[in-house]
C-alpha cells in the first residue's frame, strides 16, 4: 500500500463531519459545471471578464453618480457653477461663513448693488479657498476669504475628503497651482491633489455611499432645509434655533482651543503671498476676514496674532478685517455659528467695512 493509499484510507475512515458538506458541495459544483457546460474554464473566464467590465463600469459611473446623488459636499458643485457666471464679489469660507454672510444683503448694502456670491461650504479651509480663488472670473472685483486663526496657524492643507469632492466635481489643479501647493506643503501636499484623474474619481466613491445617510437626514430633518444648504448662492445656512444649553457647554469644551505655533504657518504664508500676487495682477481686492465667534471662544493672544497678520497683509498688499466680535453672544446658535439675527448684523458690518465706514 503506497503512502497515498494509506492516507486516503485514513481520510475515508475518519470521515469528519465538517469535511462532508464541503466535499459534497465541491462535488456538486464540479458536477454541475462539468455536465452542463462543455468548456467550464471559458465560462469561468467569461465571468471574470464580466467582473472586470463591472469594475470599469463602476469607475465610469462614479463621476456621474457623484454629480447626481446629493452628499454633504454637493454645494461645491453649485459654487463651481456660480463661478462660471459674472459675480463681482465672492466670499469664501466654511460653515461659519455660510451662516454669517447673506450675500444678497451684502449686495443691497453696497453702492451699485454688485452681484455677490457666497462661495463658502462647510469644512472649507484656506488651502481649498486658495485653489478655487485663483480661478475666479475676471468680473470679480473683491475676493473675501474668511479664515480662522487656527487654520492660518496650521501647516496642514485641509481635509482629504474635501479635496476629493473638489476633484470629483471637476476641479483639477493646473501646473501653477500644483507648483505653489508643492512649494507650500512640500511632502505634505495632499495625495488627493496629485493623483491621476481616474484615481481621483475612484477615491471619491464615498459620495455614493452617502446616499442613504443624506436621504435619511433629508427625510427626518426637513427643518434643516438641506436643499438650501446645497443650492443657495447667497445665504445657504440660516439658523434660527439655538442648541440646548448643555450641548452648548459641551461644544465649548470641545471647540475651545489654544493655538500653538506661529500666527501664520510657512505653508499658509506662501499661499497667501501667492494669492495676493494674483489678485494684484488681476486688479482684484483680496480681503482676509477673521470670522465671528462667541466671546468664550476668543483666543488668549488674539490681538497679538491680529497685529502680526496685519503686518503681513500690509507687506503683501491685501486687507484684513477682524470680525471676531461683530456678533453678540446671544446671536450665536452654538459657539461658532451665528443665528439669522447674527448674520444680519455681521453682513451689515461687512458691507460697512467694504464701504470704508467701519
Amino acid at each position, binding site marked *: 500500500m503506497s*503512502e*497515498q493509499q494509506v*492516507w*486516503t484510507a*485514513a*481520510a475515508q475512515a*475518519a470521515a*469528519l*463531519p*465538517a*469535511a462532508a*458538506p*464541503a*466535499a459534497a*458541495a*465541491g462535488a*456538486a*459544483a*464540479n458536477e*454541475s*459545471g462539468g455536465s*452542463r*457546460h462543455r468548456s*467550464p*474554464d471559458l*465560462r*469561468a*473566464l*467569461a*465571468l*471574470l*471578464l*464580466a*467582473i*472586470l*467590465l*463591472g*469594475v*470599469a*463600469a*463602476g*469607475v465610469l*459611473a*462614479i463621476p456621474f*453618480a457623484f454629480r447626481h446623488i446629493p452628499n*454633504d459636499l454637493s454645494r461645491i458643485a453649485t459654487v463651481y457653477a456660480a463661478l462660471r457666471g459674472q459675480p463681482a464679489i465672492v466670499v469664501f469660507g466654511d460653515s461659519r461663513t455660510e451662516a454669517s454672510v447673506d450675500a444678497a444683503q451684502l449686495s443691497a448694502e453696497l453702492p451699485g448693488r454688485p452681484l455677490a456670491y457666497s462661495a463658502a461650504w462647510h469644512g472649507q479651509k484656506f488651502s481649498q479657498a486658495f485653489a478655487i480663488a485663483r480661478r475666479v472670473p475676471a468680473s470679480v472685483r473683491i475676493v473675501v476669504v474668511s479664515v480662522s486663526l487656527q487654520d492660518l496657524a496650521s501647516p496642514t492643507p485641509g481635509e482629504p475628503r474635501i479635496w476629493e469632492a473638489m476633484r470629483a466635481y471637476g476641479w483639477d489643479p493646473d501646473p501653477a497651482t500644483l507648483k505653489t501647493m508643492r512649494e507650500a506643503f512640500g511632502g505634505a501636499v495632499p495625495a488627493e491633489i496629485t493623483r491621476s484623474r481616474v484615481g481621483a474619481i*475612484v*477615491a471619491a*466613491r464615498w459620495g*455614493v*455611499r*452617502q*446616499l*442613504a*445617510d*443624506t*436621504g*435619511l*437626514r433629508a427625510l*427626518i430633518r426637513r427643518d434643516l432645509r438641506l436643499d438650501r444648504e446645497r443650492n443657495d448662492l447667497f445665504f445657504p445656512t440660516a439658523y434660527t434655533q439655538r442648541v440646548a444649553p448643555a450641548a452648548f457647554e459641551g461644544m465649548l469644551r470641545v471647540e475651545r482651543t489654544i493655538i500653538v505655533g506661529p500666527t501664520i504657518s510657512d505653508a499658509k504664508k506662501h499661499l497667501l503671498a501667492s494669492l495676493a500676487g494674483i489678485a494684484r495682477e488681476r486688479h482684484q481686492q483680496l480681503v482676509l476676514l477673521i470670522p465671528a465667534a462667541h466671546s468664550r471662544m476668543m483666543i488668549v493672544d488674539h490681538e497679538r496674532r491680529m497685529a502680526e497678520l496685519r503686518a503681513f497683509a500690509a507687506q503683501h498688499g491685501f486687507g484684513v478685517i477682524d470680525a471676531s466680535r461683530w456678533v453678540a453672544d446671544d446671536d450665536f446658535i452654538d459657539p461658532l455659528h451665528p443665528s439669522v439675527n447674527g448674520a444680519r448684523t455681521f453682513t451689515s458690518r461687512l458691507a460697512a467695512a467694504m464701504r470704508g465706514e467701519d
Partner: protein
Amino acid sequence: MLFHTQEFLIFFAALITTLALVRNDVARKVILTGASYFFYMWWKPLFVLPLLATTFIDYTVARMLEFEERLARRRALLAFSLVANLGLLAYFKYFNFFAENVVAIAHAIGFDFSPALAQLILPVGISFYTFHTMSYTIDVYRREIPVCRSALTFALFITFFPVLVAGPILRAKQFIPELQKRIRLTLTPEIVLLIMRGLAKKVLVADNIGKFVDGVFAAPQRWPSVIIWIATISFAVQIYCDFSGYSDIARGLARVFGLEIPLNFDRPYAARNPSEFWRRWHISLSTWLRDYLYIPLGGNRDGAARTYRNLMITMLLGGLWHGASWNYVLWGAMHGTMLAVHRAWSSRRSHHRLPTTDYRLPRAKHALSWLAMQYCVLLTWIAFRVTDTSKMLIAMRKFIVFDFNFAIFDLGLGALSFGFTLVVVAAFIIVHATSWRFGDLDQRIARLPLPAAAAVCFVCGALFVVFWPLTEKPFIYFQF
C-alpha cells in the same frame, strides 16, 4: 498580505503564472510551499521562525512516533510537541496578559510589583497553525493517521497560504490526502463565484459596517437601547461576513490549486439552539475543541455534572483561544453556560419522553427557539466585541433593559454612516435569508445561463468599485 489588496493580486497572478509554466508536480509543490512562506513573511519576515520551528518539531516528533512502540516514550514525545506548540502560543499570546493579571492581583493585595512587560507582537496566524500541527501529532500518537513522511507535503500542510493566517483549522486526515494529489490548476465558474462571494462579504458588507459598530461601542453610554441593538445586530453581521468571507476566499483559492478545504460556516444564524450554533459557526475550531479537548476531558461519559464541567472548560479555553483578554473568557463562559443549559433542557425532555426532534415541533416553537437563540448569541457578541469591561456592562444593560428611547436622529449618527449601515445590513439579511431558503446564491448563479451569470458578476464588479472601503481593513480574525 491581505486577500483584498493589490499586493495579493500581484502575488497570486505571479504564482499562478509560475505554476502554469512548471509541469513537474514536486516542483509545483516546492513553488507553492515557497510562495506560502513568502506570503507569511511579507508581514514580518522574522516571524517565520516560530512557524519553521513548529513545522520542524512536529515533523520530527511524528517520524519518531512512527517507530516508537513504548507507551512512556510515545507520551513523552507527544508531551514535548504539545509543550513546544503551546509554549510558543503562551509566550506570544498570553505572556503579557498573564503578567498584567499577576501585577493586578499583587496590587490588590498590597504588593507594589511592576515588572517590565515584554513588547510582544503576536505572530499572525499562530493560533491557527499551532492547532494544525497539534492535531496532526495527536492523531499520529493515537494511531488514527499514518505519519507524513514527505517533509515537503508536511510543510505545505502547515503553511498553505490560503488558510495559514485565519483558518479554517485543517486536520491532517482531511488535508494531507489532498496534498498527495497532483497540483492541478483549475478555474471553474464555481471557483470564481465562491471567491467573489467571499470578497463581497468582506468588502461590501463587513468593512462598510465597521465604522458604525466601532463608533457605537466606543461610547455605548451615549446611545439609547435601539442603537445598541442595531449595533449588536450589525456586529453579528460584520463578524460573520468578515470571517466567513475569508473562509470562502480561502476555499476558492485552494480550489484553484485543485485542493479542497473544509467548510467553516454553515449559516450559523439559522441555529435554534447552542449545540446547533456550534455545528454551524467556525466549524473547524468547534470540531477541533470537541476532538482534542472536550472528548479527552471525558465528554459526556461521566454523568451530567462532569459533562457541564467539560463543556464549560472547553468553551472557556475556546474563548481564551480568541485572545488574551477577559472579555473573550466571558464570551466563552456565556457560550459554555448556554450549552450546559441546553443540554440540561434536552436531557429533561428526553427523560420525560417529550418530543425532542425538531420536525415534531410546531412552527411557532421553531420560531421562538430561533429568536431565543439569536437573542443569546447577540448578547454574547457584545462580550466579544467590547473589551472594556465597564463599557461592555453598559452595552449589555442597554441591550437587556430596553429604554424605549427612539429619539435618535439628533445624535450625530450620520457621521457614523448609520443610514448606509442600515441599508447594508438589511441587504445582507435579505440575501442571506434567500440563500437560506433557496440554497447558496453562488451555486445558483453558477447554474444560470451565461449571460445572466455574467450580468450578476458585472453588477458585483461595479459594486466592488463603488463600495470598496476607503481604507484597507484587515480581517478581524487576523488578530487571533
